[in-house]
């Protein structure tokens, strides 16, 4: 898939646990895990906004387009 999710990289950079992020943005750890692995069809703007707010980053830091 050309769009890659770099959430795990951002979590490592910010030294934040998946569990804490999931609790903060109000989704389950299972869904966060799916999001990290890119196994979802989309991300809601609300979810993206909450992640960016918590990690203090831009959407571009989490999602990246890679040429195939």
């Amino acid at each position, binding site marked *: 898939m050309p769009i890659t999710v770099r959430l795990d990289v951002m979590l490592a950079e910010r030294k934040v646990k998946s569990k804490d992020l999931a609790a903060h943005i109000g989704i389950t750890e299972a869904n966060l895990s799916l999001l990290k692995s890119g196994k*979802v069809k989309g991300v809601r703007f609300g*979810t993206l906004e909450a992640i960016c707010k918590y990690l203090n980053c831009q959407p571009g830091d989490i999602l990246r387009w890679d040429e195939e």
Partner: protein
Amino acid sequence: MKSIATNLKALSWVIYLLLVIVGVSPFLHFVFPGFNSLFPPHELLTQYGGLERLEIWQQIGGFFVAAWPAALLCWALILILRLMALLKAGMWFDKRSETICSQFSRAMMWFVAAQVLHKTLLVLIFTATRPAGERILFLAFNLEDAFALLPAIFALIFAHIVSLARQQREELQQII
């Protein structure tokens, strides 16, 4: 939501009643003709001389042929009950609802076919013992039979809508 449950419950009682009426109608039409004025003998039975004139194999064959559309209609009613049970459980856009709608549509189409063909078969059975040249082949398709296709078409459209809604819901569930 409570009113939907109440309506479904009321509707299910109507369907149970219809099931009983449709289920016993071949017996009342054929096995006990003239039981009461509500269930007069099968029109073809009266037309071809009544039950007494028929041989035992014609009576048995005639009953099964007459019961064929009724059995299909009973099956369609059972499918509606199953669909209503799913709706009551909140499974509106479920794969099972979609399957039941398709099955109902097929059952109704078979009912229409059976409704047309059972008359042909009944006349064939009733006139089978007549001398050659007096046996009758009868085929008729009227407006009532055509109208019976409407529920089948509606169910097919509903099954398609449920299928699209289910796909959309599944896709939405994959959006975090």
